[in-house]
């Protein structure tokens, strides 16, 4: 179960040091890749069946293959790394950058070779001071190592606090010095990305996986995991477990095992109520749905996803309406405001959920909540509002009785017993103009 590729050797050695990383064969995969034609590197990654670890799970090799060859598009080609990890429940990229910065950089350099780019931009979230300083130190150690850098420049670009900048086109806007609002697609970044040039945007973990694929060979890597979900995944486990943390698993490991073996079981040996499987954007699973493989197909069968691999475990004290409020408030705060259904809808969702929690909601408002969710879905440029709607609708769907109880009993059956009771969210700090109340 503990198959470590991304985090390999980081337990025994300080891999933030270049010498230590080279001592375990670091940068050998880069040398191997540079001895291959770019297309051969892409073919190797296609053979590995690696899919993006940021959340969308798009096949990495295919994404690279979309980048036009230099003779097809004379503009410079760019590699932009999405290190804007901000999904509630996910903290894997944080640890990857902090513990295996050179493996991450090696992956960037291999990818740059594959897509024939000499410019790498790492968009790292502004709050990540720790990982940023580790990367600065790692790049400083590489400054005189032109045998490794090979003429490629790596720029660390720090964000300034905006969840939406994890969406790739919003990230590119932000990197260009603008407000981080998503673009219409097409054109996709592969055709017109940074500075309207061909750009591949990849996640941190994806980059840190690439050297291992080159080392093992794509076919060998593809022997790990299960169909459509090959290789390993660094899973972030948090919430009500005894041993929260990041664990690298082989894809397909059961959710029960993640919670009870790796996570050590529920804190204070309470009962499991629910688990968010892949970060706040994913459909919740009930306690009786955890005998499922942690892989794309198994979770898709339950209409949910691995997302950004943030597993959040909730015990039996938690109120699902309170969870809905906190999640909805998060998306309300982070909505960039460009598309009306998301900007207004997330606010309406919060309003209805707050009325339910306060015992003020009437029966029809339960349906109104689902109606608002439905009217966000598929009507925006990016998935932000949609994921809020899907997540909250799943709480209603899977815990309908509990939501109904809030109406019937004119209040919350859990109250302050639930750890999510009266949690102050940043959005509640802001003063909004009182223009938008939910139309009855």
């Amino acid at each position, binding site marked *: 179960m503990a198959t470590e590729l991304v985090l390999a050797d980081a337990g025994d050695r300080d891999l933030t040091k270049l010498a230590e990383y080279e001592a375990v064969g670091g940068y050998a995969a880069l040398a191997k890749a540079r001895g291959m034609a770019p297309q051969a590197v892409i073919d190797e990654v296609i053979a590995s069946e690696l899919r993006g670890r940021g959340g969308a799970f798009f096949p990495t090799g295919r994404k690279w293959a979309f980048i036009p060859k230099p003779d097809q598009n004379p503009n*410079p080609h760019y590699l932009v790394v999405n290190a804007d*990890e*901000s*999904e*509630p*429940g*996910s*903290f894997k*990229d*944080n640890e990857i950058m902090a513990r295996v910065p050179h493996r991450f950089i090696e992956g960037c350099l291999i990818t740059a070779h594959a897509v024939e780019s000499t*410019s790498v*931009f790492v968009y790292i*979230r*502004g*709050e*990540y*001071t*720790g990982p940023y300083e580790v990367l600065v130190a790692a790049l400083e150690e590489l400054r005189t190592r032109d045998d490794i850098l090979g003429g490629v420049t790596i720029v660390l*670009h*720090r*964000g*300034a*606090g*905006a*969840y939406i900048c994890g969406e790739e086109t919003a990230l590119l806007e*932000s990197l*260009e*010095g*603008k*407000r*981080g609002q998503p673009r219409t697609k097409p054109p996709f970044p592969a055709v017109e990305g*940074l*500075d309207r040039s061909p750009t591949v945007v990849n996640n941190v973990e994806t980059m840190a996986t690439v050297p291992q694929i080159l080392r093992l060979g794509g076919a060998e890597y593809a022997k790990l995991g299960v169909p459509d979900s090959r290789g390993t995944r660094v899973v*972030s*486990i*948090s*919430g*009500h477990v005894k041993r*929260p*943390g*990041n664990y690298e698993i082989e894809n397909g490991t059961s959710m029960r095992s993640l919670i009870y073996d790796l996570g050590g079981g529920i804190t204070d040996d309470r009962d499991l109520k629910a688990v*968010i499987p892949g970060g*706040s954007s994913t459909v919740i699973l009930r306690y009786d749905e955890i005998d499922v493989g942690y892989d794309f197909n198994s979770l898709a069968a339950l209409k949910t996803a691995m997302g950004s691999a*943030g597993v*959040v475990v*909730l015990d039996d004290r*938690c109120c699902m309406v309170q*969870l809905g409020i*906190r999640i909805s408030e*998060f998306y309300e*705060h982070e909505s*960039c405001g460009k598309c009306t259904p998301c900007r207004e809808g997330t606010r309406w969702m919060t309003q209805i959920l707050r009325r339910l929690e306060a015992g003020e909601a009437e029966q029809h408002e339960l349906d109104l909540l689902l109606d608002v969710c439905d009217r966000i879905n598929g009507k925006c440029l990016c998935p932000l509002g949609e994921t809020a709607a899907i997540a909250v609708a799943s709480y209603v769907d899977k815990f309908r009785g509990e939501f109904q109880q809030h109406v019937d009993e004119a209040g919350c059956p859990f109250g302050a017993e639930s*750890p*999510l*009771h009266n*949690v*102050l*969210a*940043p959005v509640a*700090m802001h003063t909004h103009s009182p223009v938008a109340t939910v139309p009855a």
Partner: protein
Amino acid sequence: MSELYTEVQKLKQQYPDPDSAMLPALRLAQEKHGYLSPEALRECADALGTTPAVCEAVASFYDMLHLAPIGRHMVEVCTNVSCALVGAQQVLEQFEQELGISAGETTPDGEVTLRPIECLGGCGWATIVSVDHHYRTHVQPGDVPQIVQELRNGD
């Protein structure tokens, strides 16, 4: 020319389009002026070759950029789900009590601003408190007096 101006000219060269230096320039201006005051926005705009309005329009989008004065120290308590599940609200309230202010406020001496913040990406090490942009992990209400004391004793 100010140091900031020179620094921003260097930053511009890192990117295919010099406009990309906006966020790092705003960060530098905020560090220099304490917050993005009209003077800070002016200096930033001059260095970037744009207008203060453009700088303000961008800055207002981002949570870490402040258009109003903040304390010399910033304490941010993550209150998203994973932290909330293990008691982030109680940590936030302990800071309120210890500092004698409500969340969102700055102490009257201008030393410390306290605010809740969205997921800081440290869910497994909850509760995360970012003190001057460095994470404290596994923070419990009992740890709060010492953190505040350290801030008060600091420079």
